[in-house]
């Protein structure tokens, strides 16, 4: 069997090799991330059968938990790791032509560090280790947001840095509390001992950790960094930030709330928070005239929806939430990637400057349309099965409060649809200035076509992913088996 540690080790090692490789051959640099992520993707696929049978627990340095640091490769972790490698691969193919100017070596290095951090967060079984990987993820994204080196980029990068650091500080304080109470940092060990301590004692560390992670995962009201950062980063990085970074943050929140603490009294509160995030995100997106800010706010909305689905904590809704998460990674990635070249061509991020793009860049516009339809949840694209599962799971609970929240979800979908349809009309049916037709470069087109195929395939045959997501959701919800498989 292949060792899952390679999922972290290979990109980490290659990230620091990038400057060396660059000094050897300039041309090779761009291909390093592609190779590393392709390797990770293949590894993840090969791990699927073994993980579905039994979660793999790796004890680093040979110390058995609770003493050493362990990696926990369950279906959920593998889903995220696979998603990170897949989205990372597609975006790195896109970047081959998109990233041409500026500090290219640093870009590729930071890009791989970002993904290494994300992979580490989803695979680790240790709280402090989670913090470390989280910092790797955050710090590389602070730097990448400022990649262009222009005023807006640096300003939003600094804003992001300030808020992110406050969040990390809170997370660290929370972890400190936990260590003080339990004397251990192993997640499974804490989860086992959690019942021995009174619930009210745990509240402060939990809320500190949730708020700390909540900053990265863009939960309202902790998400103010996101619109600035996502809109001023290069589009390839926006796609990763929106498709991977905030979702990894959400994973960490869910892991801590469900597995480590498992206090079910607070779930309903998270459902409300999710709906609030959803409504505010969608309404802010509705008011935007800047395409990238619109997409960024829409990410906030989607995170709210996924949080709502996870917080309902039934197998159906969590499966639906994860499905929506996968869809969001693909569709939002596709939207940012296609918007990236349209912005490049028109020279402006205003939606009105994209008028008539359907004629100038037909394929890129088609990609945007597919992404938008999928995100809104129209069949036959990947957004519909996710929405169907979430709504049916929520209604199955049969509680009046939740039924009303579902109504709000559907309402916000209408708002979401409205602003996306507006952009699609601008792309196809408004007359732009009659520039010539010129497609995006081949690598970018390849990346977009790959995502389009994934979206349509998932929309037409959702069962393909359903079984895997279902075991991922029980991985998240079934605390006992998590503890059992780590502390044998």
């Amino acid at each position, binding site marked *: 069997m292949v060792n899952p540690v390679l999922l972290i080790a290979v990109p980490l090692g290659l990230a620091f090799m990038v400057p060396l490789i660059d000094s050897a051959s300039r041309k090779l640099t761009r291909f390093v991330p592609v190779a590393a992520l392709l390797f990770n993707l293949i590894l993840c696929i090969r791990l699927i059968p073994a993980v579905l049978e039994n979660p793999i627990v790796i004890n680093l340095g040979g110390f058995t938990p609770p003493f050493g640091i362990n990696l926990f490769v369950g279906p959920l972790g593998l889903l995220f790791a696979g998603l990170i490698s897949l989205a990372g691969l597609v975006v790195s193919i896109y970047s081959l032509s998109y990233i041409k100017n500026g500090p290219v070596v640093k870009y590729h290095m930071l890009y791989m560090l970002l993904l290494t951090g994300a992979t580490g967060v989803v695979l680790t079984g240790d709280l402090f280790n989670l913090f470390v990987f989280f910092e790797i993820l955050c710090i590389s994204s602070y730097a990448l947001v400022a990649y262009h080196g222009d005023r807006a980029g640096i300003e939003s990068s600094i804003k992001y840095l300030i808020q992110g650091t406050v969040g990390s500080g809170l997370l660290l304080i929370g972890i400190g509390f936990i260590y003080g109470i339990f004397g251990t940092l192993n997640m499974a060990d804490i989860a086992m001992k959690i019942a021995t301590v009174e619930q009210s004692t745990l509240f402060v560390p939990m*809320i500190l950790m949730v708020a700390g992670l*909540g900053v990265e995962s863009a939960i309202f009201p902790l998400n103010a960094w996101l619109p600035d950062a996502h809109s001023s980063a290069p589009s390839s990085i926006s796609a990763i930030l929106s498709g991977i970074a905030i979702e990894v943050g959400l994973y960490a929140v869910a892991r801590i709330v469900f597995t480590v603490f498992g206090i079910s*009294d607070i779930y309903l509160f998270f459902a409300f928070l999710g709906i609030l995030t959803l409504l*505010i995100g969608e*309404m802010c997106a509705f*008011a935007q005239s800047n395409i990238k800010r619109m997409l960024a706010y829409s990410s906030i909305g989607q995170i709210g929806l996924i949080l709502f689905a996870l917080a309902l904590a039934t197998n159906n809704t969590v499966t639906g939430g994860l499905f929506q998460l996968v869809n969001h990674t693909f569709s939002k990635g596709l939207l940012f990637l296609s918007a990236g070249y349209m912005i490049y061509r028109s020279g402006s991020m205003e939606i009105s400057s994209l008028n008539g793009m359907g004629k100038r860049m037909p394929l890129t516009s088609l990609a945007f349309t597919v992404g938008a339809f999928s995100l809104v949840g129209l069949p036959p694209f990947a957004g519909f099965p996710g929405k169907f599962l979430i709504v049916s799971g929520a209604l199955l609970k*049969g509680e009046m409060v939740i039924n009303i929240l579902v109504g709000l979800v*559907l309402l916000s979908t209408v708002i979401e649809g409205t602003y996306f349809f507006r952009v699609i009309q601008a792309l196809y049916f408004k007359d732009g200035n009659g520039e010539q037709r010129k497609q995006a470069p081949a690598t970018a087109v390849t990346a977009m076509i790959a995502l389009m195929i994934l979206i349509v395939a998932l929309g037409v045959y959702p069962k393909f992913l359903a079984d895997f997501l279902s075991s991922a959701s029980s991985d998240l919800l079934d605390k006992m088996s998590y503890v059992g498989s780590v502390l044998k």
Partner: protein
Amino acid sequence: MTGMEILLLVAFGGVMLTYILGRISSSLRNTFAVVLSLVLVVIIALMYDKTGETIFYRGFFGIPMVLRINSLSWIFAMTISFIGCLSVIFSLDYMKVKERTSFFYAMLLLVNSSMMGIVLAGDLLTLFIFWEIMSWSTFLLISYNGGPAIAAGMKYIVMSFAGSMAMLAGIISIFTAFGTLQISEIAAGMSSASSGFKIFIVIVFGIAFGVKNAIWPFHAWLPQAHAEAPSPFSAVLSGVLIKMGVFGFILTMYVVVGLGTYMSLGGAIFSVRSILLVMGAITILVPTFVALLQDDAKKLLAWSTIAQAGYIMLGIAYGTSLSMAGGVLHFLSHVVFKSLLFMTVGAVEFRTGGIRDLNSLGGLIKKMPFAFTGTLIGVCGLIGVPLTNGFVSKWLIYKSLIFGSPLLTFVALFGTWGTVLYSYKLIHNIFLGQLPEKLKDVENTPLSMKLPMIILSFTVLLFGILPGLPLRVINKIVVSLGFDSLNISLWGIVSESGMLNMINLFAAILAGLIAVWLFLRIGARTIPVKQDDNYAAGAAVPRDRYNYTVKFYDPLLRMISPYLRDIFDTFYMKIADLTGYLSNGIRKIYTGYVGNYVMYIVLFISLMIFVQMKWSPW
């Protein structure tokens, strides 16, 4: 593979192939599109009188997705493919001068294919999926022309999307309540459900189908959308697409909820049935007179479509076998004559270079005799002149209403009076009166437009003289929905509230016409005058100075227009404005000052800890 699977495969595969062929050669694509739509007509015709259900797909989380065929879905599928085929033929010349024709054809065929999917759906999930595909492809087609079409498309998709979200809530409620989505199984579960649940289902589905069918107060999207869409698609839109709402109503009320339950659902005064009837009546009354106000030919027809949907609604909601037959037959009649009218107006628009304004047209009768004849027959059908299909269907509706509900009958008749007025306005302002100088070089209708017009005109008369043809199929539907069978012959119908025999009427009218003709033959010879030779009390009227089509019905319009403000349109626009305003307010949460943002984080934690310490809810 059953016929239905083959049908959908051909339909959807054809959409893709049409687009691909369009990249190679436009004439190849046109030929293929015509052949494809003819093949679909043939396949559906072969499925006549078949019933059956088949599971065609389990890939959606293992939920069985079912196709089924029965007389109800057959008649709808037949109509869809028939009008779809004619509109493709009509497009051949109409679209020649436009851009992105491959996109247009592919979308037109996609709309048709998804509508076939809707009517053949045997479970609500399949129905919903095809419903959404139909909605977004329609949106793309409505917006196709750009300019004012952008706003029209937006209004359509937002209302339609709100409707489908309501439908989704209903479908998933059914799924969680009964664990199945198959229509044949739901009916059994529904009979034991609480009446509150049933009313909820009727409301959410009512919103979804009401929006599509443009029943008052959900009609606001329709006039602009119909007017701004490309004319061949307006014919489909007005003819069949909004009738998906009718299909949905029949499905919800008589199949899902069930006839017996539907008739008694709700309270004594505010029963579901009476509310639907009142909505139907208002849908006839107001839009008919709004149609009178219109100066845009396609807008006039659009408002008329809403009004006619009211008649169909009355027939279906009334719930006797006669009214049901009337409602379904009127749907069929309306499809035929309204598509015909949109095509003739489209032909005029095509030949005059895009003029739809009724004030600047006139006198085209000699230039476009085919279009005139088509319009005349269509308008006769719309009014319900004997020997046209509209007469039979309206007769059935009046007859079933007249004893049970005189008020509704009066509303329906009153609406017909308005219909006469606006129909005359339409035909007069386009074809009669003087020919404006700028239109003197207008050419005759091209062949590809004549052909669908001839076929549709012929159908109007055929179904008017031999109503037994469609009624025989409709009777099967009526029986399958749980009503009594009707006594139908090829020439007409016998019922307890009266009998109709079209062959007698036909003979009488024929005799009358011969008498008039003979009289004119024998009498004094007529003197032909020029088209612009007007009677002006002996004074010479300069050409093009007076246009008798301007300000038609002006005194009447001035009288009624204050009562016809579209409250609901204003209301929806207010909601849209309010959402924009609110969003702009909420956006200000993100002030741009990082200090505020950090404060949010700290406040969030403080608030949480405060709440926990004060009330300790967790």
